């Protein structure tokens, strides 16, 4: 998957986790928590959805990498580069 495809996958997951919010205008370089109502359970949902949809395992120490769209894509790019779009 390319970085734009990974971003699309992240937005897709965010849409299911925050169904009352419009995720299309989320800024790539601003922390997600500042833009959406997300708590720690929601971040665990992001981790779980990545695991379920793409079999990507994210160690707990790396959760901080999921702060913004940019940091998430950057972190996931090497892990997901060989995957096909779901």
């Amino acid at each position, binding site marked *: 998957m390319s970085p734009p495809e990974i971003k699309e996958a992240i937005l897709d997951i965010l849409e*299911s*986790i925050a*169904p*009352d919010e419009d995720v299309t205008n989320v800024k790539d370089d601003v922390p997600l928590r500042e833009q959406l*109502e997300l708590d720690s*359970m929601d971040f665990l949902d992001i981790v*779980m959805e990545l*695991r*379920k949809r793409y079999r990507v395992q994210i160690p707990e120490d790396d959760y901080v990498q999921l702060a913004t769209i940019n940091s998430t894509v950057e972190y996931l790019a090497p892990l997901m580069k060989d995957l096909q779009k779901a």
Partner: protein
Amino acid sequence: MIAGLPDRERIVITGVGLAAPNGNNLSEFRESLLENRSGVSPYEIRYFGKTLAGICHFDERRYQTKKDQRRGTRAGSIGIYCAHEAVNDSGLDWPNVDKANVGIYIGVTEHGNVETENEIHELRSYDYDTKFWSHHHNPRTVANNPAGEISLNLGITGPHYTIGAACAAGNAGIIQGAQMLRLGECDVALAGGVSESIHTFGIFASFRSQGALASHDDPARASRPFDVDRNGIVVAEGGCLYVLERLSDARKRGARIYGEIAGYAINSDASDFVLPNSDRQAECVERALRRAGLAAEQVDIVSTHATGTASGDVQESAALRRVFGESPHAQFNNAKSFIGHAMGAAGALELGGNLPAFGDRVCHHTMNVDALDPECALQGLVTREPRECKSVNVILNNSFGMLGINSVVIVQRI
């Protein structure tokens, strides 16, 4: 019990919020009961297949966001809906109510089976690798979940918990609320019961294996307590929560009072896991009457528990004949014949359906008694159509459950 008690120890109902398969509030539910409108529909659930159930149609989004729903449970949604409706109905100045002094006491038959079944079903797609087991499982399945979701949604910081009492739970929730008000643990109690049980295949499969699941070509005719052709339980979901207050507080704010919790009792059969015991049921009714300072002949309406099983209806009828005699003054009815068995919500819902009788003096009937089982013969059983009474001052509500738990609540007009 109430005779001579000061007003601060007398507990009254000042609000009702409910979700029934044939009504989303008390007036709709009551209208359905008086107009012979069933809430039983065809239903299908994974693994089990086609069956019948009482399915609620309240607007879940009225008091919850999509995210609330996604995160929580069906029991939580039912509880939140009923709690808001009850508070609105009570006329309490809710923004100015001290939320630390509100208690939430919710009866449940079971909780957690729905989410556990969902997770195991989901896990099958991942070859039962528990790394894919949801972190939501624990907060959704803890036994206090339905009460806790109400606390979170309404910002109530007083005590919240559920009371596990099988199908006696609706009454048990009301009793707990009344007791906590008397103890001064809260000033407002949200009390009653909820059930999400139709979303677990296990309950249908277990009742079927027990030979206690109803079936009928016409869904509306499947739930038929006391009828000779009854063949089991129709499982339903639903909820009914009451706002309970001390009489002194209710009078001070000029609240509309539905009735007073005049007496109650809970006891145990100590005789069988599933088979009821009419002697213990009769003792439970007698104890509640004694506490209320009432004689059996002062009861105007008895809301029966009967679920449509072969043995249960016979046992309850025997208990009621023992207490009320062969020629009772009371009228007897049964709401499960309309909506099925709403499990932990049943006791609270069935009481609710009768409360308007204090005003209109009409005892709703029992549906589907086409041929009364002679073993269930109850002089005063209202069948076919509602019956007008000369006066309605006392309603007695039975609710019994597995493992031999019996509960009775008596409400008196005030």
